[in-house]
């Protein structure tokens, strides 16, 4: 991430306000440097940087009781809103696709992803979580 001069100026002013005008130049330099580092390091992946807060969860595998319930319980517990759901079963093989709004969930994308990956392992099925944008760009003009 690039930090503009404007941003550096803002950070400096912020530090001056916090520490007062009589801060030593060394301390000021150190404090500004640390804050810039933090800005750079912060992987600025927030919900807002994506176009929508919706993900598509696709699960498939051998059908067994409780699959839908397990997945939807995880989603419900984490304040994820299932907006649409469709399922097909071919003999004992099932495929389920959910459109889920995770924008008000306390979990980050990665946390949800990992949680579902663990659940998938327990149930011996596959669960894929992908941001909606990839489907929109590939299939809608």
């Amino acid at each position: 991430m690039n930090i503009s001069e404007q941003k550096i100026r803002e950070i400096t002013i912020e530090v001056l306000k916090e520490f007062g005008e009589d801060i030593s130049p060394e301390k000021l330099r150190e404090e500004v440097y640390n804050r810039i580092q933090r800005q750079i390091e912060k992987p600025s992946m927030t919900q807002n940087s994506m176009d929508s807060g919706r993900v598509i969860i696709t699960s498939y595998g051998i059908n067994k009781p409780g699959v839908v319930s397990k997945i939807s319980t995880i989603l419900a517990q984490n304040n994820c809103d299932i907006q649409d759901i469709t399922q097909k079963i071919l003999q004992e093989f099932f495929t389920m696709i959910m459109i889920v709004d995770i924008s008000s969930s306390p979990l980050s994308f990665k946390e949800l992803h990992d949680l579902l990956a663990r659940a998938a392992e327990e149930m011996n099925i596959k669960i894929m979580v992908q941001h909606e944008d990839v489907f929109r760009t590939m299939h809608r003009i």
Partner: protein
Amino acid sequence: MPYEFEEILETIRMTQVEHFDIRTVTLGINLRDCADRDVNVISQKIYDKITRIARNHVKIAQEIEQRFGIAIANKRIAVTPVSIPFDNLKKDEFIKIAETLDRAAEAVGVDYIGGFGALVQKGFTNGEKELILAIPEALAKTKRVCSSVNVASTKAGINMDAINLMSHQIKETARLTAKDGSIGCAKLVVFCNVPEDNPFVAGAFHGVSEAEASINVGISGPGVVLQAIREAGRVDLGQLSEIIKKTAFKITRAGELIGRKVAELLGVEFGIVDISLAPTPAEGDSVADILEAMGLESVGAPGTTAALALLNDSVKKGGLMASSYVGGLSGAFIPVSEDAGMIRAVQKGHLSLEKLEAMTCVCSVGLDMIAVPGDTPEETIAGIIADECAIGVINDKTTAVRIIPAFGKKVGDMVEYGGLLGSAPIMPVRNISSKEFVLRGGRIPAPVRSLTN
């Protein structure tokens, strides 16, 4: 539901079964502000700049990978051709720069860094000559550094002196890296009409007209195209083109999305999507297989060039519609060692160097990852490069040669590189001399085609 069941499954099938991935997300970094008299100062500046801008490159790419469920096979870096900002350096100092690039690449976790190169289509500056002299040792001493030298262009003609020098350096690189199957040559490309925003190594560099830093994306999906063609069954060639276009459209859209997100998070400019079909040695991820699925018994059969032209053109047309910024090489790659189908065709004797040369007239690059006997004379290599340059100059297209005169190997041997570089069968080269022609030297004038004003 806003998406059809089948649409969602199609995307998942592409990524999970058919090897659709983003082949490379390449971060281009300008090094022109790293100039100094002292090579140690330059090295420090280069190292600091690359590690500062690229420190989160791999991490962010991985985040995006997970978010969209599409693998990004390679995260790479391209820098300004180092002969440009550091024209004052000497051979040994350039080797030091290569080592710095290698260290910086390692520090940020990328496997290859491109840009140890020069643009000498019209002539050499002192620094450019020193850099070219440094190439063999630089490639032998480093693991991650890739080098490319542009020796011809439609506007400038063909610099035969540069070709002769490069042929010598290719042989020298092969000798210095003999114990690893002359792998140094796999990191060295000679170009004609080189694009400045190509994200694919070994030819990637950050052109002089580029921004301070930018992200260029190379997509890849031979497996997806192959599957679409197989599913289509027996349709005519017009319909076949349509099917390829639609597939290329979808994968390019995904590529652009991913490139833009990575660029946004890194806080650098988004450059281009390179809509190339880049094969890998994995089964089913082969351009040769596509040509065979079109109906050829084997790559190399008469009709191969036509089939490749159809494929290449359709990929471009589909990709163009999908992205606002298309650039780089954009077309089908036909490397030998990186494509299981190509290797098969060479081993069976179906595919010769001459047929490959014909195919390069209509594909995106040129003779790529071709291993030839270690005792191939350097003048013969110069002849091969000159031929490729002529094709590029006259047709106003990019061509390139990445040839490996594998030290100590003979026709019929194999060189194993592993990973994406695959394994290369040694191909026969005609044993007739080009010496008296190439050693005339000088510059072949720019063609009539260059006078477009």
